[in-house]
């Protein structure tokens, strides 16, 4: 479902947000700690810190819907991928390594931009990473402007 350019985009060092929701429909917000796309199945392996985002992660249950948003800080280019959680569990070693590399790179980039370590303390974490396997169902343009919210076809998603 995801074109190669879109895959490259979300796997690059973009800022990542996600939202789950509780039984009552109240959304829960969290920040992602990296993502990779399984080229075979097309599923996302989405990483998040359970200790930093306990509410959002606790509602990330198999079968539940999830929204994930990816934003490049330099030009505000952004997209949102919505889907259904297929599996959820502690990240294995390979995914932990990916999450740690993502967090380290983001911290370095932000600090280079003048953001302080204190400001980043609550933002990014590579501790207690969970891996959510997500089946993508819809992709949306999210770059600020009149086109935000437009549903993208797989071809246009790149």
């Amino acid at each position: 479902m995801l074109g190669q350019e879109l895959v490259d985009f979300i796997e690059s060092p973009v800022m990542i947000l996600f939202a789950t929701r509780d039984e009552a429909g109240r959304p829960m917000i969290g920040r992602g700690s990296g993502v990779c796309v399984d080229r075979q199945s097309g599923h996302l392996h989405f990483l998040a810190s359970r200790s930093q985002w306990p509410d959002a992660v606790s509602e990330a249950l198999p079968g539940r819907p999830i929204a994930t948003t990816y934003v490049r800080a330099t030009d505000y280019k952004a997209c949102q991928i919505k889907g259904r959680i297929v599996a959820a569990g502690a990240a294995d070693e390979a995914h932990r390594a990916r999450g740690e590399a993502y967090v380290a790179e983001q911290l370095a980039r932000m600090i280079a931009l003048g953001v302080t370590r204190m400001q980043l303390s609550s933002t990014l974490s590579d501790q207690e990473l969970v891996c959510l396997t997500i089946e993508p169902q819809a992709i949306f343009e999210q770059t600020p402007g009149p086109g935000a919210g437009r549903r993208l076809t797989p071809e246009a998603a790149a």
Partner: protein
Amino acid sequence: MIPLESLRDSFEGVIPSIIATTDADGMPNISYLSHVHYVDEAHVALSDQFFSKTATNVARNGLATVMVVDGYSGQQHVLDLAFERSETEGETFERMAIHLAILESRMSGIMKLRAVDIYRVEDCRAVPAANPLVAPEPLFLPDLMGKVARLTARMSDCGDPETLLDATLEGLGELFGYRHSMVLVPDGERGGLTTIASRGYDQFGFGAEVPAGRGIIGLAAERRRNVRITDLSRGRRYIEAVRAMAGVEDATPIPLPALDKPLSQIALPLVARGRLVGVLFSESTERFTFRHRDEEALIVIAAHLGTALSFLSEERERGEANGREKADAPADPAGSVPAGRRIAVRFYPRDGSLFVDDDYLIRGVPGRLLLHFLEDYARTGKRDFLNREIRRDRRLQLPDFKDNLETRLILLRRRLEEKAGPITLERADRGRLRLTLAGRPEIEVVEE
């Protein structure tokens, strides 16, 4: 619930907020939101210009969750919101419209505030740093009330508008650490503003102009609202856009005194009896120089300055009317005009602009005032001029407002002093100005 009042730095828009909603199928939607605005202890306001899915979801179930981030500490808070109403006018709408107007050029004009949505805050929770990178540094904020009291007391001791302006800007630097400040007054003709006093810049910039409604200074004047920017570091494009809007890049004859790379700016309208009498502007190369509490302190100082400026200008008028001044200034005996070098004066009636020896000096009312003095001097040798005489002279097309004459004279005198050219104007005594020339003026009036 954590009181919203304690999170004021999270409502500055320094770090983008995040909003999440859910649709009828239970699918969440999440996106960045430039700004969550504080309304009161139980309400916030959102201006959602782009995210139609968010609007659709909120219209369905009235629920939204936002996460706001403290621009200083990075501390995050999650707010559970319930939609209450939309507003298309009023205090909150105006405040948000002015913020959007400043952002607009960066967004290519596609942002226009149609309405603001007011939400009730049902809960506010901290997102603790589970694995902090460093220990948080507590923020020490000094009491500002004592400083406000000291500065306003100094201002009350001032006996004339010029001393008042200087004492205010001096005090802002000395007591508050706001070291780059200026006061601008309405030009009374083009709807813009002109710099009359400044502190902390390489040049004073007396006479520098800001067009009506442009930048944070022009917007503060036009909308009679305070405009405060806490952190301009979110991108060079943003800084350049704001600098352009502040009038810096306009082809004005006198450049506005301005910092090259400001990170914080604030502009407050000076209002007396419901009428705009000026704008107080301050800026800094540091982030967070002007927090919410600094704005509150400056509101008190700006109110005092506006009223005192108006009062002292009028008192000068009353002093003259009570006859405490000398009789009309006599002309010097014919032939007392110095024979020295030629001073080339060129004047354009269209906008009142005046050039001395081919150098632009000033325009508008101050330009016409100086032409008037120079013409009288060339004709009769007269060097002393009384405010009262000036006001009576119909040729000058003076604006109706009383305090305008006084501020124009201050501006003209300071501009001449800054230029350090062959013409100077001194205040001889109360209500009396003395013109001094290092040569013989040759006046050319250029009709276009």
